[in-house]
């Protein structure tokens, strides 16, 4: 079973990866630090999962070689669980990628990373309501310090496929 960490460049995917696998890959504060994927392993409820740190991508329509690597990884895994890592301060454009991934029928889970930054910038996100609407687990995290990672791990088995037709109807009627 594979867990793919996907998200925009520079949202902390590598930091989440390190937390999940105990690996030591390096992080930098600029888009495109990770140009190749890294694999690691983690155990959840006694089950082994392969975790892959996927290079950052803005959408499922690749614009450069690093994004192509990202989409190849998505395509070559059989029914993976996708953890969409989002920079909480830029939640809207993060959701755009999350939608694209959910539309493709993947089991999805959302990590609202850099949650501390959102708090600092006085940005309030109603996580419970967001979960209710999307029907996928949504977990606030601060991967650098490890906050929220244990909850993220707990929720991995609950990653969910979304019926986009339903979602569209529900959101339109909000």
């Amino acid at each position, binding site marked *: 079973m594979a867990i793919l960490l996907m998200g925009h460049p520079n949202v902390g995917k590598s930091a989440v990866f390190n937390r999940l696998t105990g690996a030591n890959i390096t992080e930098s504060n600029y888009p495109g630090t990770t140009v190749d994927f890294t694999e690691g392993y983690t155990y959840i409820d006694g089950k082994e999962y392969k975790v892959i740190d996927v290079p950052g991508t803005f959408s499922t329509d690749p614009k450069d070689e690093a994004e192509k690597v990202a989409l190849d990884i998505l395509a070559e895994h059989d029914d993976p669980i996708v953890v969409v890592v989002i920079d909480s301060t*830029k939640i809207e*454009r993060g959701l755009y990628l999350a939608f694209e991934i959910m539309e493709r029928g993947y089991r999805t889970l959302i990590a609202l990373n850099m949650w501390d930054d959102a708090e600092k910038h006085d940005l309030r996100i109603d996580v419970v309501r967001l979960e209710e609407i999307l029907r996928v687990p949504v977990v606030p995290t601060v991967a650098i310090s490890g906050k929220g990672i244990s909850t993220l791990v707990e929720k991995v088995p609950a990653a969910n496929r979304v019926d986009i037709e339903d979602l569209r109807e529900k959101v339109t009627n909000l």
Partner: protein
Amino acid sequence: MTDTKKLSELDYGEKGVIKKINRSLKDQLLGRGIREGKTIRMDTKQPINGPVVITIDRSTTSLGLNLAKDIFVEVNNGDTSNGSS
């Protein structure tokens, strides 16, 4: 009073609402959250036809000047409302 100009013509600190993005660029910017209807702020322009730096919502992006010419922005002189859609 509103008036529409190219993003490349905005002044430092000037804000406006994106009215139209030319087709060629549109797809490339969609995933970055740069799209019609959003409020955009010009942060800086680099000299000698250098890139512009803009902010939308809470994310800052740098764009080449020629790309900025493909984005049309409605500038509201006087009142700078903060509406996001």
